[in-house]
């Protein structure tokens, strides 16, 4: 009986320790989204500056890097050059920025100062952000050619992080 109690106790303790270690080993920025593996929520928003309507459904057939950001978000300043640089060197991948809780004037000023090589859309009511489960910014979703979300990254990306996730979208 004593041995049984010890074995059960040890099993429970080991299970708890294992759960703790698995949790500690995870990158908190890589938050699992329930949308991964599912078709990306559809939206059509107008681009800042050009006024051109971008419909996400029309981009099927091309992997998409969908970056949610805002001008009031400090990490977005750090991430912006990474996105601009990679948008120029990675072929056949559509980069799109979606800005929410922000104003057109501030976005234009930000893009004039820091460069813009891909469409930036304004999500005025935050509905697109809600549909994608965006909590904070920056958050980036990677869509494959079929329009399915294959990865999500929370926080500012480095080139390595961005390119490793783009590779998933290209598969």
């Amino acid at each position, binding site marked *: *009986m*004593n041995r049984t*109690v*010890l074995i*059960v*106790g040890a099993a*429970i303790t080991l299970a708890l320790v294992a759960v703790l270690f698995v949790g500690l080993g995870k990158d908190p920025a890589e938050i*699992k*989204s*329930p*949308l991964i593996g599912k078709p990306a*929520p*559809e*939206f*059509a*928003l*107008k681009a*800042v500056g050009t*006024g051109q*309507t971008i419909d996400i459904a029309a981009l099927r057939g091309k992997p998409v890097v969908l970056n949610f950001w805002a001008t009031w978000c400090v990490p977005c300043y750090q991430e912006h050059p990474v996105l601009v640089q990679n948008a120029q060197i990675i072929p056949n991948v559509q980069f799109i920025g979606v800005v*929410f*809780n922000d104003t*057109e004037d501030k976005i234009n000023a930000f893009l004039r100062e820091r460069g813009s090589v891909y469409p930036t859309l*304004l*999500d*005025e*009511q*935050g*509905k*697109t*952000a*809600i*549909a*994608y*489960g*965006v*909590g*904070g910014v920056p958050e980036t979703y990677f869509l494959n050619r079929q329009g399915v979300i294959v990865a999500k990254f929370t926080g500012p990306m480095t080139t390595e992080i961005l390119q490793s996730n783009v590779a998933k979208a290209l598969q």
Partner: protein
Amino acid sequence: MIFLLLVTALGLPPGPPEGAPLSGQALEQRTHEVASLLRCPVCQGMSVADSPSTVALDMKQHVHELLARGYTEEQILSYFESSYGQFVRLKPRNPLVWILPVVVFLIGAVLVVVTLRRLSSPTTENRELRTDNPYLDRVRELVEKE
């Protein structure tokens, strides 16, 4: 001139609204109630109804619109859950979340009690080895404790 417009009305739960469209005071009250069941994704344990963050305000506004269209509480909660995960529900749908910790605690408590009882009482083996001589039994107990 505002030339940045939201073009499509997205963000609707799947299927038609299953309730009656609300308006006026009833809509405001119900918005608060449903928003109280949603967790603010950028706060520490605050509901969407209580949080002043812009994300929470957007979510609350969206709840308001969905209730006005006639979507039910469960349709709205399921919609938010589909994009944010079960985390967004302040009251998880799966009752195991509440029950399991209590069950595990009770199992642990039983294990502790059983172990303590076993340690404080003579073992079966000890009882089997008892002789008619109390002195020898006492010596054996002391030796085994060592």
